[in-house]
């Protein structure tokens, strides 16, 4: 093993691959962070739609979720890469395509997390809020969602960790994330063991520190030592 390859390419791997500063469209974090935030917003709407009484609202939401759960993400990215230009007549930059595809795909998974989170809030909370005259929107905003959010945190973090690794699927459209950066270097210098060990370490550090950190965060969010 010769870790010289890591030192020589450290900037490319970390700055370009992980953070996304560089000449290529890329960056694991630059894609994963906005994708989870926007995906969560979209997912919240879809998750709420799945709980709606009207079948005209909950069925489309359900179909959306089932559809994207059944299709590999790489295929979704591929289709967006070619369908957006076909529809709009303009080709979008890689980053925009990757982000759109991720947001739309992740929203399906996040919608399920949101739904489960909301359903974990006891019914009595909704009744109590309703009985004091809060509107549906008010009770969602002030009573249900804050509690649901806390219940969702572990699942959200897990999903974010998955997403962090899945950004590599965007390399099919030339997006240079950490994995792709390692592959580019590998193609040039043929050092698979060193490179893969290095990226494994980076991913592991991210995921592990994050799940550690959220455990503390969770405790902070819950007002009681329950």
């Amino acid at each position, binding site marked *: 093993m010769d870790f010289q390859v890591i030192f020589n390419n450290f900037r*490319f791997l970390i700055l370009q691959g992980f953070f996304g500063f560089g000449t290529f469209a890329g960056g694991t974090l630059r894609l994963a962070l906005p994708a989870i935030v926007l995906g969560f917003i979209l997912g919240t709407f879809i998750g709420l739609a799945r709980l709606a009484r009207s079948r005209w609202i909950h069925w489309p939401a359900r179909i959306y979720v089932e559809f994207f759960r059944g299709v590999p993400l790489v295929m979704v990215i591929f289709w967006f890469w070619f369908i957006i230009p076909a529809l709009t007549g303009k080709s979008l930059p890689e980053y925009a395509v990757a982000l759109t595809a991720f947001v739309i795909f992740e929203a399906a998974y996040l919608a399920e997390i949101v739904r489960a989170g909301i359903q974990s809030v006891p019914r009595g909370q909704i009744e109590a809020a309703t009985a004091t005259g809060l509107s549906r929107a008010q009770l969602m905003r002030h009573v249900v969602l804050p509690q649901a959010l806390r219940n969702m945190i572990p699942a959200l973090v897990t999903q974010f960790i998955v997403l962090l690794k899945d950004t590599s699927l965007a390399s099919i459209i030339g997006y240079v994330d950490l994995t792709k950066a390692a592959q580019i270097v590998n193609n040039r210098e043929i050092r698979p063991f060193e490179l893969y060990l290095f990226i494994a370490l980076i991913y592991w550090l991210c995921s592990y520190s994050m799940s550690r950190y959220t455990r503390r965060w969770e405790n902070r969010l819950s007002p009681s030592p329950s």
Partner: protein
Amino acid sequence: ETTLEKIDKSGTLIIGTRTGSPPFAYVNKNNEWVGFSIDLVEKAILPVLNKKLNKQIKLEKKESAPQTRIPLLQSNAVDLIAETMTDTQSRRDNVDFSLTFFVTGAQFLVKKGGAIKGIQTIAGKRIAAQQGSTNAKIIRERVPSAKLLEFPDQPAAFQALAQGQVQAYTNDGIQLAGLKAKAPKPDDWAGVGEFFSYEPYGIAMRKNDSDFRQAVNVGLMDALASNLYFEIYDKWFGPKGEVPYPLLPETKRFLQMQVVPK
């Protein structure tokens, strides 16, 4: 809208190329996207377009993978594909190709002194190939008893060879030469066998756009007729190049014979 009109309007030529096919198209140690195929476009074809459209055309690169390169062309996302794409008849059903700009053929990379000497000796052996390559297709047809393992990238296939998971790795001769040159111990490896396939590399373009194709071909012909092509060749494949790979006299003659009179 023809491709020339599109380029005229946008002022850019967008090409689809690779980040991991040294020395044709790859990212070098300085993180620049370079290579033989890219140089050809930049130095031979771009000047023709500049002259023809009477303005400075910019060059923009996008990554193309085997699964995306034809859709990229057809959705107008890129204007040409310049990498290591072999010109084949079935591909010609969907895209047009320029003149051949590089010629190679499939061979085998083996551990020095290995049992495999060429395609006649691979029956029953485990052979690695690159996914989606024409070589794998030929082996499957010519030696069905060989056990074929296809890897998506060169390093994985090479790793399989180095660890003895396969007894040989087949790819275009030039790719094997590049691989051998960069391998930790180049002398442990040998490229063996006659070319068992013919791999003419071409630049792919959208079908039925002969004006644009003419511009590309003129660029290539000019480069071949002047000494430009051979300078570029020397830069990448000469003794001091990224992958030393001497140009065979017959190949040189073939390339030059593609040049038609003005």
